[in-house]
């Protein structure tokens, strides 16, 4: 009788094999795949570059600002960058379609640019990173955050000091 129940179950469910190359494959929700970078929320602390075990992440200063590059051909998808990122602006998506022909080898890069800006108070040129919020007590309000974003590091420190006094 057992084989009959198995037989009907197999008839009902169809083959167990995923039809992958001919149809999309199911992906787990928390799959650790391709790296995504959001330049707007990045604080520019470069912690991800430091902790990356495979040296896939590289920041570089250019005339336009600071570039972020993650080469997926050496990334081991460990998720350490996401774990250490204070703002989670480096994260992993569930995209695993990374196989490519040899001539695409050096094109598999996640690229981002943190541009330069002119400080709203002193007029110096500085990176337009998001202000650090980890140790700010009381936390920034939305207006204060936007104000701090428009400043250079020195003016941010002054702003924090004045905030602490008042």
């Amino acid at each position, binding site marked *: 009788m057992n084989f009959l129940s198995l037989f009907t179950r197999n008839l009902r469910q169809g*083959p*167990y*094999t*995923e039809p*992958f*190359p001919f149809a999309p*494959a199911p992906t787990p929700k928390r*799959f650790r795949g391709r790296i995504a970078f959001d330049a707007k929320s990045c604080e520019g602390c470069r912690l991800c570059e430091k902790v990356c*075990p*495979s*040296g896939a992440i590289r920041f570089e200063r250019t005339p336009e600002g600071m570039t972020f590059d993650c*080469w*997926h*051909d*050496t*990334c*081991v*998808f*460990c998720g350490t960058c996401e774990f250490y990122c204070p703002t989670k602006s480096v994260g992993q998506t569930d995209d*695993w*379609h*990374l*196989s*490519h*022909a*040899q001539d*695409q*080898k050096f094109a*598999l890069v996640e690229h981002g640019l943190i541009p330069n800006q002119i400080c709203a108070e002193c007029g110096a040129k500085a990176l337009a990173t998001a202000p650090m919020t980890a140790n700010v007590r009381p936390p920034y309000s939305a207006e204060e955050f936007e104000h701090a974003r428009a400043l250079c590091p020195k003016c941010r420190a002054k702003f924090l000091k004045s905030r602490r006094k008042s």
Partner: protein
Amino acid sequence: MSVVERLKNVAARSPWLYRINAGSCNGCDVELATTALIPRYDVERLGCQYCGSPRHADIVLITGPLTRHVLAAAQRLFEEIPDPKVTVAVGVCPISGGIFRESYSVCAPIDQYFPVDVNVPGCPPRPQAIIEGIAKAIAIWRQRL
């Protein structure tokens, strides 16, 4: 259709796979075994089959960062595989070295020694990604035939 073309169409059905473990940690090899042996993924649907001898192979799958110790043996094996062959680098190690990249005992990336055609990054790549890479390799192999 000429006889040669007809023969090509017949021959292009079933590319056989051959694995070279060039000092891999076995993670990618386990994924390769999973790709072939578990009915959920089943690479044999594409006509592929692992073969035991390099002389029967059409597509070579290389895993591992190519340690210095295994370099000569891997090159000897690679030369035994008849042309036209397609080389697939499976995992991050053969493509760039990954976490072993600057080691004294590792010859990665392997494209210094082998003509790589398809790269499948991942540490290890998931079986579906390997199937995707093999599908790309089959397309290249059909063109070369």
